């Protein structure tokens, strides 16, 4: 008997009855067995297939060169939105069937993922974000050398994910993982489906709500951290860890009548949320349970070795589950603290000693780490500001729905407390540090799987037999609003985050021209490079692709100073120009002026130029200037 059932024995029988009513354990009847004609199911599957075909076709019609400051939304043809609408409507229709068909729902979710996350491979055919290229380079360096060089950068202090890629590359002979990086957003969202479903099954009242929650996760997940990255890898592990704990190890970690505090805690939890999560739990044999404890510990270890932030996000989530009676393993939150702190001290000591001030400099400054970091993002071109406001509005909508869901859950006596506690838990990281200004974005992602379990509550009844037309329409409307907002917010920076073959050719030309060890300068930090020769050159940037209030124009002198000693190569690309304009890193049109002016400067020689940009060689004192 778990502590979970022991906490309030008075209500146990009643709860089981209630669960039998809401949890789908009714005796079979002709109604709940579901006599959905197979042609309904076939028609819905065909609708999803049509949405997929139309969505892919419409994306192939996009001309990437026409993508402007508002991102992809401005150039997507109407057919794309028809495809998106079909995929959303088909899913809600399937959710409204008397009997759920998991294979159909899975197919429809996968189609929605391709339509929403497939723009990079289908439109651009290249990995998204310059970080993807960097990550390939780090994996390549580790794979080639089998060595860690923490002096290069912090990635080498958390090598787990990169060594995994290096092993894949080394064992397959595949020197080029561009294909994997290009399709990563689709692939990672596919990988998230099973853990998300396992998680939402434990945090909602019935499978219908669980499927709806997963659907809302996909349509509201605009953060774009699903590229080939350690955070995406760790997110899969984190969700699986939490799903496993909720499914196998739910319950109180201590006797609820043991001390005054535990008695008070159990009563408070029971008052707030008296529901019993009665489905989705599994009860393995004793030895298998012990194996799963070890497996959960290994998940934490792999996250710790791979990513700086994710293990720290796991700590408050596990603590929240422990304190709400949803985690029996009291040592696990302790292990979740010990592993990343131990790693920071022993394995990442180089990083810690070099960045101690930076790590703790903003400690406790909640304003700077939250609203301060947010306000710096509301800048740049007018179109970009609109995209930023769309993102804020989308986050606000999800959180408003989640708060409303918590209230509805409390009133209906449906499960809500665990989801609410886990959704709020990552926010305790705000006082620690701003994480390069990205903390709020990351916290939204960590909270989202839990917030969506609450967001479905106002829109769905506890009734397990289908959705009413009114509720189905409301759900569809909300999904359509969120999905459209996601197209705006996810792809709002498409001009700077996506690259083209000309830029890759330009970078390849740079590598074939510049001798090993040379200084390579990018005008704005947004170049698809370092996917090879990560440690072979001295990489510099004149300006970061960050908002800079009253940004000064770029000067040739800045590049000359870097090149002063031994010369350098300067690369200016189209996506650098887009980034500078979009983020307001330089005055409008400054990069063109900079290129035109500096091209005629003494010591500057144009090495190569194509539609993707230009390379200059700048002479230094040791080679003639």
């Amino acid at each position, binding site marked *: 008997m778990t502590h979970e059932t022991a906490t309030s024995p008075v209500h146990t029988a009643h709860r089981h009855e209630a669960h039998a009513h809401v949890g789908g354990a009714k005796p079979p009847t002709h109604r709940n067995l579901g006599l959905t004609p197979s042609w309904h199911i076939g028609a819905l599957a065909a609708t999803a297939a049509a949405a997929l075909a139309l969505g892919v076709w419409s994306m192939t019609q996009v001309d990437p060169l026409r993508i402007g400051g508002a991102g992809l939304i401005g150039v997507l043809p109407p057919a794309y939105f028809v495809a998106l609408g079909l995929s959303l409507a088909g899913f809600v229709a399937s959710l409204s069937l008397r009997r759920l068909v998991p294979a159909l729902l899975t197919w429809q979710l996968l189609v929605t993922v391709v339509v929403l996350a497939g723009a990079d491979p289908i439109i651009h055919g290249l990995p998204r974000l310059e970080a993807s290229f960097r990550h390939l380079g780090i994996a390549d360096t580790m794979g080639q050398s089998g*060595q860690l060089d923490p002096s290069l950068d912090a990635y080498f202090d958390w090598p787990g994910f990169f060594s995994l890629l290096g*092993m894949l590359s080394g*064992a*397959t002979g*595949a020197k080029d993982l561009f294909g994997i990086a290009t399709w990563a957003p689709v692939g990672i969202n596919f990988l998230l489906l099973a853990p998300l479903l396992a998680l939402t099954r434990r945090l909602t009242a019935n499978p219908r709500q669980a499927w709806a929650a997963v659907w809302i996760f996909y349509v509201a997940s605009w953060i774009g951290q699903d590229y080939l990255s350690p955070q995406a890898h760790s997110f899969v592990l984190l969700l*699986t860890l939490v*799903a*496993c704990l909720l499914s196998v190890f739910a319950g109180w970690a201590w006797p609820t009548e043991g001390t005054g505090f535990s008695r008070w805690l159990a009563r408070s939890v029971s008052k707030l949320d008296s529901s019993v999560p009665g489905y989705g739990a599994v009860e393995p044999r004793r030895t298998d349970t012990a194996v799963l404890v070890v497996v959960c510990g*290994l998940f934490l270890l792999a996250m710790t070795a791979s990513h700086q932030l994710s293990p720290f996000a796991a700590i408050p989530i596990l603590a929240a589950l422990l304190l709400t009676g949803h985690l029996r393993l009291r040592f696990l939150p302790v292990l979740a603290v010990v592993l990343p702190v131990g790693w920071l001290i022993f*394995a990442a000591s180089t990083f810690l000693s070099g960045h101690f001030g930076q790590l703790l400099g903003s400690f406790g400054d909640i304003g700077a780490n939250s609203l301060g970091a947010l306000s710096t993002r509301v800048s740049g071109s007018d179109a970009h500001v609109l995209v930023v406001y769309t993102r804020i509005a989308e986050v606000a909508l999800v959180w408003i729905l989640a708060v409303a869901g918590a209230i509805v859950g409390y009133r209906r006596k449906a499960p809500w407390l665990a989801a609410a506690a886990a959704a709020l838990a990552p926010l305790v990281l705000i006082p620690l540090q701003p994480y390069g200004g990205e903390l709020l974005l990351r916290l939204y992602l960590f909270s989202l799987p839990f917030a969506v379990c609450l967001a479905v509550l106002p829109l769905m009844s506890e009734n397990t037999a289908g959705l009413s037309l009114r509720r189905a329409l409301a759900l569809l409307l909300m999904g359509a609003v969120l999905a459209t907002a996601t197209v705006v917010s996810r792809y709002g920076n498409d001009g700077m985050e996506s690259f083209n073959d000309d830029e890759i050719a330009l970078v390849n030309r740079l590598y074939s021209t510049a001798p090993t060890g040379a200084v390579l300068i990018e005008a704005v930090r947004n170049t698809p490079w370092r996917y090879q020769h990560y440690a072979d050159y001295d990489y510099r940037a004149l300006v970061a692709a960050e908002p800079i209030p009253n940004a000064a124009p770029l000067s040739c002198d800045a590049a000359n100073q870097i090149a002063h000693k031994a010369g350098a190569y300067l690369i200016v690309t189209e996506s650098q120009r887009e980034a500078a304009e979009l983020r307001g890193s330089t005055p409008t049109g400054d990069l063109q002026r900079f290129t035109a002016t500096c091209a005629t400067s003494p010591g500057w020689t144009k090495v190569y130029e194509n539609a993707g940009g230009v390379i200059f060689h700048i002479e230094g004192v040791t080679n003639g200037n």
Partner: protein
Amino acid sequence: MATERSYVSYATAAVALAAIPLSFVGPEGLRLAVIGLLMLAGPGTALVLLLHFGPTRSATTAGALPLIIAIAIAFSLTMSTLVATAMIYAQLWSPPAGVCVLSILTLAFLGLEFKRPQRALVRAK
């Protein structure tokens, strides 16, 4: 259900066995497909076949399918990550050897799973 389990067992064993020679030699596309599949799902699939999440054919076990798939993938990624990280910290970097370790781990789990029904049968007798 038992038949499905055995099909999955055979397929997993085939991938694990094929990955060993392919980690040294073979066409790049085939190596990427087989070794990628092993790293993504090999050891984890063998592990979840070894574990029993509830009575066979029960609604609980059927409902646990998302969890089973999630653990299969996450455990495989975890083991691949930890093996690669251990090799790099131990300065014993050898990607083919890492793949062999994952294959052996997968086959060991499958072997235990193969022996498990026999043990149960002995106990029943």
